[in-house]
């Protein structure tokens, strides 16, 4: 089942039949966190580096709140911090308009800093440049793919992180 994550949305879970998709990432960052041992995943479609209004109830919208929020939610499902790794795509500079600045670069920088702060390795990324990207996370295979206009889908997850090749000690929900 495909689950689409729009701007500022997130998902946490372990349902092996799901694929999480973030379509048309421009300056936004699509972030995937995964604990392959306990098979717990989380993803967020992050829009800006930090919160600009005080009463926003979407923690996944901002990098600075999304990362700790996802980690907390994963822990509730049994994820262990020591196993968690990250993958990310987006952060492009789609528009060269002076007043906009490079929101994508700021999002990318904030993402790397937040992951480093929480000790989460970023094992795959397709960040920056000037291209839009669609990021897909397949919870059954543990493979993240990136799609761009005019290019075939690219699996960005390093082979050693695919579910087929990791030792699974925790409860599995594969079918």
């Amino acid at each position, binding site marked *: 089942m495909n689950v689409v994550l729009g701007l500022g949305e997130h998902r946490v879970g372990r349902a092996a039949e799901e694929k999480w998709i973030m*379509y*048309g990432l*421009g300056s936004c960052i699509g972030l995937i966190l995964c604990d392959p041992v306990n098979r717990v995943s989380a993803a967020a479609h992050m829009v800006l580096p930090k919160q600009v209004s005080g009463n926003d109830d979407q923690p996944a919208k901002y990098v600075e709140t999304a990362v700790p929020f996802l980690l907390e939610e994963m822990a509730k499902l049994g994820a262990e911090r020591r196993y968690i790794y990250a993958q990310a795509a987006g952060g492009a500079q*789609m528009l060269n308009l002076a007043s906009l600045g490079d929101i994508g670069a700021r999002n990318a920088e904030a993402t790397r800093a937040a992951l480093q702060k929480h000790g989460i390795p970023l094992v795959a990324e397709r960040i920056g440049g000037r291209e*839009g990207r669609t990021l897909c996370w397949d919870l059954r295979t543990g493979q993240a793919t990136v799609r761009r206009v005019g290019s075939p889908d690219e699996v960005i997850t390093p082979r050693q992180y695919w579910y087929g090749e990791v030792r699974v000690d925790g409860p599995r929900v594969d079918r």
Partner: protein
Amino acid sequence: MTIASDAARAVMERALSRSAEALSRFLGDRVLRPSYVTLTTHRLAELPILWGRAEMPIAGVVLEVRGDLEGFLLLIVPQEDCAGFLQSLMGGPCDDEELAESALGEMGNVVCSAFLNELADTYAMRINPSPPAVVCDMVGALLETLAAALAMEKRSELPVVRAQLAGNGQGSSAYLLWIPGRGDLERLEALS
């Protein structure tokens, strides 16, 4: 949501007609009368899926509107329709990507400037659009980036003015889209 004042709607439609005339002159080809102008309100998160399919490849020309009006003005051409416009512009097929982008950027500049000039003339406003930025990519990625810029301004709901400009020659269509600045539409209505 509709544009509340008939006078404001009439001005928008005149502005669209002026854009169509400018496009006709630019292409050397008659452009069909623009479709009825629509105004809808969207949550910020809905902006990237305005066209339904976020991955739809397009050529987009974006101008930032500055001065007495603000926001973003876009001319969006679906990728499959680009060839038709380029055929009219260049008098034949265009294989040079850089040249094609430049031509589409100029087309967007002409159409968007005509739209803004009508508003400026009608309301005696000073409007200074930015130079055009051209993006050939997924429509969702372009609109998502604008959504991020608008999120920085703490905007959560957006009015969007839209109309279709249909080319006569190759069956090509382009879409004009204006995301007005905060309070711009209310100001236009008050002046109408």
